[in-house]
């Protein structure tokens, strides 16, 4: 299931990485911050939506990096280079992430920055849309359910595919096999 998810998500323009342990994934995230030169300067912030991946220990570790924001305002998100949120599942057939984005911080960090880094528990990938619908409880739908497939795109000028119109230019998906905890 993961292989199909990865292939389809990449076809849609996402970058997909997989790690067995949370520790490896954490290192990937820290490296990414470094590579992307996250800093306190406007335009270079990293904004976090609260999530299980960001547990106390990891939060302390990343807090040492300048430019981290754990309480997210629209201004910070707008001035951020990277936004990080954890998603609730994915659909392999179409390479799509699913997120209950009712919490405003999840939306701000996944919409406004240049890069959206999505943390995904590999075990939550289901086959396709009908499979996701079958397991979703329609009577208790989150107020803002989001499906995300690749980065923001347009083809409105001469049908030329252009990435990053109003949303992130890059969608980086960090799959973790042994994430622990609930999303």
């Amino acid at each position, binding site marked *: 299931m993961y292989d199909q998810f990865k292939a*389809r998500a990449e*076809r*849609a323009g996402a970058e997909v990485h997989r790690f067995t342990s949370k520790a490896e994934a954490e290192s990937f995230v820290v490296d990414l911050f470094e590579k992307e030169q996250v800093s306190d300067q406007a335009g270079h912030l990293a904004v976090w939506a609260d999530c299980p991946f960001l547990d106390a220990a990891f939060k302390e570790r990343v807090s040492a990096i300048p430019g981290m924001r754990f309480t*997210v*305002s*629209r201004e910070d998100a*707008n001035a951020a280079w990277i936004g990080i949120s954890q998603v609730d599942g994915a659909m392999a*057939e*179409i*390479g*799509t992430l699913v997120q209950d984005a*009712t*919490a*405003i911080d999840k*939306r*701000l960090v996944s*919409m*406004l920055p240049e890069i959206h880094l999505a943390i995904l528990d590999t075990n939550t990938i289901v086959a396709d*849309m*009908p499979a996701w*619908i*079958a397991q*979703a409880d*329609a*009577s208790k*739908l*989150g*107020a*803002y*359910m*989001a*499906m*995300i*497939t*690749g*980065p*923001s*795109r*347009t*083809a*409105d*000028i*001469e*049908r*030329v595919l*252009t990435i*990053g*119109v*109003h*949303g*992130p230019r890059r969608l980086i998906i960090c799959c973790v096999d042994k994430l622990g905890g609930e999303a």
Partner: protein
Amino acid sequence: MEKQFRESIGTALDDAKLSAALGKFSVDYKANRAKIYEDTDFEALRSQIAACKSFAAAHMEELAAQFTKNAEARGAKVYRANSPESVREYILKVAKDNQVKTIVKSKSMATEEVHLNPFLEKEGIEVAETDLGEWIIQLAGQRPSHMVMPAIHLTRDDVADIFSKEVEERLTSDIPRLVKLARERLRPKFMRAEMGISGGNIAVAETGTVVLITNEGNARLTTTLPKVHVAVVGLEKLVANFADIAPILKALPRSATAQLLTSYVTMVTGPTPTDDGGMKDLHIVLMDNQRSAMAHDPMFKEALQCIRCASCLNVCPIFRLVGGHVFGKVYTGAIGTILTAWYEGLKESEEIQGLCIMCGACKDVCPGKIDIPSLIMEVRRRVVKNQGLPLLQKSIYQVVNNRKLFHGMLRAASVAGKPFSKDGFIRHLPMFLSDLTEGRSLPAIAAKPLRDIFKKIEQPRGLQQKVVFYAGCLIDFAYPEMGEALVKTFNKAGIEVLFPENQTCCGAPARYSGAYEVAAQNGKDNIEALLSVEADYVISACPTCTVALNEEFIATFKSLGHTAYLPQAEELAAKVMDFSTLVKKLVDEGRLTLKEGQTLGKVTYHDSCHLKRSLRADQPPRELLEKSGYEISEMFECDVCCGMGGSYSVKLPEMSAPILQRKLKNIKDTGAPVVAMDCPGCVMQIRGGMDKDGSGVKVRHTAELIAEQLKD
């Protein structure tokens, strides 16, 4: 047709940039669409969508009530708006209540439909379209030409010009930079807007959810950043159950943009927290504007199955020539013609409905399984019913309804037309199809019609099985040799061919002009004639006639409420078969043998619209040709209309001509010396074109080619 409209067609046809953009798109779209649906059972998928959407249309009021109850239970305010005016007034009131100065909008055809922007702007509110295409259109002061790609008619240079004016700086036509500029310009508007307005692609009654499907991410920002969100949703967007979103989310992106899924799908169920610690003020406007009236119309309720993918525009040979600013109003193209007739009034679709050539390409790809051509025909019928036919057409059809007079005139034309015909080529249409406008020379009509020749054909005696041959006007009066070939073929198979003399025009020309009463009379006359003799089959070698006999008599009677003739029409329909299908059957049964071991060289095959998309009989002629020793060399766009469309080529020659030219090129590109087809109408169009072209490619009816290859 009004002069102004006629001129707009001419201008669009002359617009090289427009035809280049739309032409390339139509080619790319078909390839991309085919690829994205590769592993999908499209028929099953669209049946699923048609089932859930037709259920929703039949239960519109219940679902609207259920949606309202569930959305309100989650905290949304739902407003039912019956008219465009009430949509505008409600939104203005919400804006005023919230001291709104700036509104950001994500793409919404519903708000285009009610002309919301100019109304709000007049009230002093800044309205910014944020979908890139819509923003371009807004800055240019135009209307969308395509419901999915609003700015498809503009080039990068046009966009650079439009943006340059906006930013008062000369921009180059570098697309990524233009897109970046849009992001930078619109982001501050998102940040400060007090209200966001969106449409809705699906409204789920079970949960009170509005589903939004976008690629750019602007709908996410529109529904997240401003304090107030108003979603304007047409009643046709309702579905009963949450699970119903699956087939729509599967088909819509595939059909609209050849994507597995758009970048974003957003499902809003009730208000959400805002970033100032409060809660969103969520308003959902359920817009009627004739949708409930459509739901009560026995024919047009089907149009409510539309999911607004625009694939009917993308495959349309007419749309790709003139685009949506000519072919449509707010909604454009094929479905746009139907929606315009309802949302803006029948009068508004009077001219655009005439642009449809009835090739049926849209019907094949519609994920809502809507019989779009039939609905456009019904629009046409109602237009004619309200306004009557042009006087000249009326007098022609009076003649068509009097067989003896009609056939007498055709015989007269044969004599009168002689000086104008050359080498047996038809340069003009038989007059019964034409408007007989001044300056048009008379058509070439065969010296002897088939009905006269037929009497002299000596058929073998004592043949047990019999078929009735329905010739149709073109074979009867213009191409009797096709009829002779057909008789020869069936005789070889041991079948006697009968030709009831009272058969007359199949009524298609009248029907396609909206003259249903004339078509109905043709239907009654033919039913009487064709059922007057005992036979196993009624055979036609003209697919348009075949479809008239086996579907359209019934449809015409139903439209007019002439139910008394239905049983006979159905009896006839059950016996009708096209030439190639029956001949293929006879060959398979061993009753007819083709010469063996021949190498006849290359032939390319043109799919006639009715044979391919109504009768679904595109394979039998190919198999027959191959079996007789031809090598089929498929042409590009083999199943795209040749531009004949019955009287279309006379009414709109300027549209018909470029379609024909494209067809001729595709034929010649195969290098085949012969092009085969099963429709005498297509033969007339393509043979005439090839004659003028001088390329020497032979244009033949399959019946003629097969008759030459029968084993003795």
